[in-house]
């Protein structure tokens, strides 16, 4: 447990202190939302229609940012050897990393989204659903990202490969997340889409660490 906590804390500190870490994720998310009205024009009806999708596209891209650092550097600088010799199972090591990544990307985005909602003319009633959908969905995004990041370690400069691997797997999150927000905005019940989103997220949280640990073991040679 102490090993788990120390690993989680170390990754959290690394994410916060790195130039490409938490601050960049938050800034990237905010920039997409801030720039969208400038590109799409100030028409409130257009923004309202596009808003749910834009928020979720921004979330998908912003959570992608810290992933390359998540395991790649540990493989390159030999820390992976210490992980493998440590009594802590590789799956739990990945869980600690996912948690640290989520706190410095998904959670920050979730907290930021309500503040940015007026920029895309999102109706006031849809804001709680937006926050809830991000809260439910982003842990899944970090989990899928961990599996892809671990797979990507066998490739030099795997950043591009990572994006290609991750984004198709994240499509269900985009669809259910955006449709939940859109439903809330048009006065419909968003719970069905939210349930699917939560289910996808739960599956990812279980499968992600298992797949990532397996990928790192394959990387052993």
């Amino acid at each position, binding site marked *: 447990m102490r090993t788990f906590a120390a690993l989680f804390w170390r990754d959290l500190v690394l994410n916060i202190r790195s130039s490409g870490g938490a601050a960049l994720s938050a800034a990237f998310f905010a920039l997409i939302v801030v720039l969208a009205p400038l590109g799409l024009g100030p028409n409130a009806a257009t923004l309202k229609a596009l808003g749910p999708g834009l928020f979720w596209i921004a979330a998908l891209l912003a959570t992608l940012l810290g992933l390359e650092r998540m395991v790649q550097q540990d493989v390159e600088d030999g820390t992976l050897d210490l*992980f493998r010799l440590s009594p802590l199972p590789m799956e739990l090591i990945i869980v600690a990393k996912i948690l640290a990544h989520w706190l410095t990307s998904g959670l920050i985005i979730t907290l930021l989204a309500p503040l940015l909602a007026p920029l895309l003319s999102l109706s006031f009633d849809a804001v709680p659903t937006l926050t809830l959908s991000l809260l439910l969905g982003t842990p899944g995004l970090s989990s899928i990202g961990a599996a892809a990041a671990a797979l990507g370690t066998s490739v030099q400069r795997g950043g591009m490969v990572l994006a290609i691997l991750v984004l198709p797997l994240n499509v269900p999150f985009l669809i259910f997340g955006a449709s939940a927000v859109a439903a809330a905005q048009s006065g419909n019940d968003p719970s069905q889409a939210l349930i699917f989103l939560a289910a996808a997220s739960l599956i990812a949280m279980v499968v992600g660490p298992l797949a990532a640990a397996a990928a790192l073991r394959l990387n052993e040679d």
Partner: protein
Amino acid sequence: MRLVAEGLAALRGERVVFRHVNFEVSSGQALVLYGPNGSGKTTLLRILAGLLAVMAGRLRLLDNDSQPLTGEARDGALHFISHQDMIRTQLRVRETLRFHAALLGAPARDVDAALDVWGLSALAGISGGFLSAGQRRRLSLARLSLQPRRLWLLDEPLVALDAQARARLNNVCNKHLADGGIIVAATHEPFLAGMRTLHLSSGA
């Protein structure tokens, strides 16, 4: 404790780096590996650490009752100091060693003592990015002082160390051997005079 290797052979990529490697090291003994670049010293150490599989041969780490150690018990009986330093610019010296202590399952209170042994106390609060090559090496070697473990596997421990740090390393290693430990070290320089050596030849 004994480390016994019989007819070890290893494959890297599609090349056999060494074969027919035999040795036996017991408590209080050290084995110093020599050989040109690419002769498989690091590969052999990684095999001894259990991080790589052997292509052929048999490797056993036996405890005092001649029972083979496996799995977590084996991992917990050895320190592996690779030639890589695992130091991040975003973490301070003490934070780095604390993290390594946690991974080893060593108590955090021993971190400051370990820093002291390796002459790093004055640097404890600075970022890993400001360390010189020799200081980085000492920070890696400080893992040895975090927790007593019987088998030490050292890959290029002397690189970048100054005379004082080399003397320190020698003292620490001799004390470890006197306490019944085992050391296997790969190096290009004279190290642990009087101990047994194993020469790996290139392209064997």
